[in-house]
């Protein structure tokens, strides 16, 4: 089970601006362990989905070049303060995380 996603979402008018931080190593598979000099296996988030009122409002597909502890921001319309947003990620090792947050 992956760590929870830190979500901050603010509504202005009917537009929600979402900022999310996902604690994750995001190993590219190209980095060598400084002690053993062996390659650290790739371990990274492959897809992220954001849902609002049962509708997918954003999908992200990621490769190994997204930084460690990924930060992402995006916006969508049709939102009101007090609504819930749900975010979910999967990684290449089958791990995942789902977090819900309230729009402010």
């Amino acid at each position, binding site marked *: 089970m992956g760590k929870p996603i830190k979500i901050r979402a603010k509504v202005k008018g009917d537009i929600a601006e979402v900022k999310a931080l996902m604690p994750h190593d995001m190993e590219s598979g190209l980095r060598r362990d400084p002690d053993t000099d062996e390659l650290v296996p790739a371990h990274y988030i492959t897809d992220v989905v954001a849902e609002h009122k049962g509708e997918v409002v954003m999908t992200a597909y990621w490769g*190994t070049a997204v930084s460690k502890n990924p930060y992402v921001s995006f916006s969508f*319309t049709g939102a009101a303060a007090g609504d819930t947003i749900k975010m979910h990620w999967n990684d290449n090792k089958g791990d995942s995380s789902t977090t819900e947050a309230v729009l402010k």
Partner: protein
Amino acid sequence: MNAHRRLVLKGMFALAAIAAWPRLLLAARPDSVFQETDADKVIADLFGQAPTDSDQVMMKIPDIAENGAVVPVTIKTDLENVESISIVVVNNPTPLAASFIMSPRSVPTVSVRIKMGESSQVVALVKAGGAVYSTTKEVKVTIGGCGG
């Protein structure tokens, strides 16, 4: 007569919408494109068409990145009917960094932090209304982000 014409038109639009549906959705992660090592091939495989340079695709990224492990990128566009926003780092071992699939309710702007192994051109690609538009910036990296 008019009502009938309207109905036929509606039907045509509905058919066009159904035909466009699978591409619009890009329902699965394009895994093979993420493995691809050549930037031109990434773009060809992802879109099946060449992008047009456009100042309607705006990319905010530092000219000089002191730390290649964390390079903040923001992409925005004035274009309408945006289907996806993608980031390609030409000199990275696997150039496709991220693809964001927009929904009908999306505001077409995304921010993310990416890794850059070395100085490189970074291409922001926006697919909108079936066509692909891009903007390219040269980013100088002083400490690479692949080993870090």
